[in-house]
């Protein structure tokens, strides 16, 4: 891999990371490196300073926080997939994490990295939208909590400031919720061509993968359900108001169709759970 030239600094605390990130305009936080490094290798991204937050203590692991499950931003996907608390209180997340990439990716990539990258093709943002999760960010001004619904702004763009560090993901406990995760791809290791995460806990929330420039909810389908539509009817509204991307794997039109199939299947499966 031949990225452009960059400086590297390792932060030993969140405060130091924030300070380092603030010290240079084109700085970027590095955790597992599974989203950022491929972009640098292709010279699509060329940050001048990489701030390695990978060894900051206390950012890894799952904590029971009463109403919510707190997942440290540096927690690896494989650890999310096998964590007992996650399995009990947010089983959808365990399922989603178990299907990310391949075993190497799951053992290096981090939950927080995936969220902060904000890739519409990633599964965790969609799951967080469906679960109504929120994200804890620390910046020069201190800590703030950003709801998932306000976090994803556009293609690889989030409401995280360049000098903020995502430290924790808060997932409301939903042990009794009905849920489903549907992922359609050509190779198991790939990003989903289209995916959907369905959570039914009184209301139904549906997060979509790869259906817009940013991770989004299937608002059309959610509203239809709230108005009493059947799963099949609601699924027909899965891509209402969305502009799905078109690429080698699927045209925009095919993505709309896939979203309707997957949302219907997701609702049916959740209904049985």
């Amino acid at each position, binding site marked *: 891999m031949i990225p*452009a030239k960059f400086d590297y600094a390792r932060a030993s605390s969140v405060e130091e990371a924030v300070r380092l990130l603030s010290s240079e305009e084109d700085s970027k936080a590095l955790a597992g490196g599974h989203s950022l490094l491929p972009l640098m290798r292709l010279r699509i991204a060329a940050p001048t300073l990489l701030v390695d937050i990978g060894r900051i203590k206390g950012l890894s692991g799952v904590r029971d926080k009463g109403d919510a499950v707190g997942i440290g931003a540096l927690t690896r996907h494989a650890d999310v997939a096998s964590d007992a608390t996650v399995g009990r209180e947010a089983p959808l997340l365990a399922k989603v994490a178990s299907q990310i990439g391949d075993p190497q990716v799951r053992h290096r990539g981090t939950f927080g990295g995936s969220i902060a990258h904000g890739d519409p093709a990633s599964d965790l943002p969609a799951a967080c939208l469906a679960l109504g999760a929120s994200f804890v960010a620390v910046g020069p001004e201190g800590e703030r909590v950003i709801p998932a619904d306000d976090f994803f702004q556009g293609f690889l763009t989030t409401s995280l400031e360049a000098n903020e560090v995502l430290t924790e993901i808060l997932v409301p406990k939903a042990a009794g919720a009905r849920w489903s995760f549907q992922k359609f791809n050509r190779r198991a290791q790939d990003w989903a061509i289209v995916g959907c995460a369905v959570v039914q806990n009184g209301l139904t929330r549906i997060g979509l993968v790869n259906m817009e420039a940013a991770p989004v909810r299937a608002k059309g389908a959610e509203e239809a359900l709230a108005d009493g539509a059947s799963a099949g009817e609601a699924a027909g509204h899965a891509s209402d108001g969305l502009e799905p991307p078109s690429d080698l794997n*699927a045209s925009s039109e095919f993505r709309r169709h896939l979203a309707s199939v997957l949302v219907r299947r997701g609702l049916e499966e959740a209904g049985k759970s």
Partner: protein
Amino acid sequence: MTTTEAPPEERVFGQRLLRKEDPELLTGEARFVADVDVHGALYIALVRSTLAHARIVSIDVGPALEVPGVTAVFTGADLEQEWAGPLPCAWPVTEDMKAPTHLPLAVGKVCYTGDAVAVVVAESEYQARDGAEAVVVEYEPLPPVVDLGDAVSDRVVIHEDLGTNKSYTWELSPDAEAVDRAFAEATHRVHGHYIQQRLIPAAMEPRGVVVIPQPFGGEYTVISATQIPHILKVMLALTSGISETSIRVIAPAVGGGFGSKLDVYAEELLSLVLARRLKRPIRWIETRSEGTQATIQGRGQIQDIELAADADGRITAIRVKLLADMGAYLQLVTPGVPLLGAFLYAGVYDVPAYSFSCTSVFTNLTPTDAYRGAGRPEATYAIERAIDQLALEVGVDPAEIRRRNYIKPDQFPYNSVAGLVYDSGNYVGSLEKALDLSGYGELRKEQERRREQNDPVQLGIGLSTYMEMCGLAPSRVLASLRYVAGGWEAATVRLLPTGKVQVVTGTSPHGQGHETSWSQIAADRLGVSPDDVEVLHGDTAVSPYGLDSYGSRSLAVGGVAVAIATDRVIEKARQIAAHQLEAAEEDLEFTAGTFRVKGSPEKSMPLGAVAFEAFTAHNLPDGMEPNLEASSHFDPPNFTFPFGTHVCVVEIDTETGGVRLRGYTAVDDCGNQVNPLIVEGQVHGGVVQGVAQALFEEASYDSQGNLLTSTLVDYLVPAASEFPSLTTGTTVTPSPTNLLGVKGVGEAGTIGAAPAVINAVCDALSPYGIHDIDMPATPERVWTAIQEAAR
């Protein structure tokens, strides 16, 4: 030469030995070219065209020279005087074939995205890449030719000096009138129009080269990730003007090739001439993205095949028209690839009339060349898809239409209508075994149930019976096809003073396991342990003669050469043993590595002792030279013709268009098997590569000739998770044309697989009236076909 040997259990030949190559590969000890660390080396990076077709207006190397560590930058014009000849094409298939001049760095214009225009030399790899990015090239864009039909029209001529985009037209039409007559009289006619998409070889190890000059001796050691060290040496000499005696080529551990390393590349030539010019070692390692456009691609053909058949569905004639994409230039064997298929469009069937015609054209895309199977997967796809269409037309099961048309076991050796003599085969036996192993009858019942229940997941079952020509010899036949090299292979076998054995081979393994297999061949005949046999290869200083590894030739030619040389060593050893034991040669028997006097078993001499006597030369027969060493340069009398039947089972989710491979049965026959474990490995890898073409892989370009699949995120090489466990079976029909009764197996799986998969997909979609689908059968293609059929 009709002796063939069936391997009994106790022989080393035929044992499933673990590969002796594997420990060092699995522990990372094997040294690939990128592991070669040369003190004082300079690194090069190439500046590549970002346009498919353009005139080079100017190249400003100034900014690159400002980059720290960059020591020199050369453009095509700067190096024009370095070349004694252009990049070589060794297969001018017709007398009037048109071949553009192909220099390692383009001069004047670029002809594909990735065409190199300048080379940056720097103290480190990173600095070289930074330097390459700093070079400013101004282009005047020209209209790109990316479509084969557009290429034929000569609307835009890529190589102006040739006056046309057509490189050649090659025909094989033994009796055109007979073909016309058969079509006129036929009850059934089917026509298939198939597109062989371009494929990116994607060997696990990218290419790379290191050239180490001896500044005083004027000699060059070229270490390259190549399949062809011997051919490369000759070609480097011819293109650089450096004497062949001053070039040594080493192929170190090489991580796969599939034909992509059966070539002479710009980077190899540039590294050599820059080492000469700068008197420093030069190093270049390809990046994966670079490899997607700067390494040859495979396939790239449009096929039209017509079958004429009688009322029972017996094929009476086949007519084939091919349009082949050469890419921007002709690489080493680019023009010959369609010819390797030309003889096989009648496949395994007894066909009385045949005509074939191929027109090959230039496009503004990466050059194509041999890729696993080279012409034969394309031909097999066409006939095996077309015969399924014929089964539909006649109204019989795909298995039945094949039974009616197969060449029968008692027809071998079989004179094919295309002019080949098939050595041996039992196609119907292969079919019946594959049907049995796959549970064909049960699968058809399940298919029926799913159809009746209107199951959203439909089942498809696809067959293919393939046959291929491999070995690529004898040399005289290659001459008649205007291939510039021969088809022989060399081996030397020597016994060392301690009784250990050295086998020197001209084949150049890059993953196939020759060290294990050649050890088994020699050990089996010498009566020693395979562990006592060392196999030397991949270094022109160690094995001066050889024609390297490609086209499933290594065992059928090179392995047989090892057997012949081994037998010659044994014959000399027999003379020494007879002398020492004071017995007549004919009274000696040689079993389990020991010479014994018949009737006096106490009078014996183990081979090791004979080897030591040969080494000391204290007591040899009068006039005999010391040492036990013999060579063979084996030129086979014919190709070998492996065959097999594959059964593919797919499930199609008709709501998403997703195709899931549910089961795959491969019954392959490569004659006698030296090591069935290695055979299985070849079949597994081959099948996966064929399935990859059918379902996953395609080098996609936009209308401007930009490659859209330049990373492994976009170019979908499938992984283990996309495959069920393969069911493999074998039949053994020895080849009567070589001492070992062996045939090649390196490409067989790939040749058989793609049509089996697409036949399965079409079988599943048959109730919708869908009988063809382009490769790769992506979910969107399948779903769209279903939608259109419903309209």
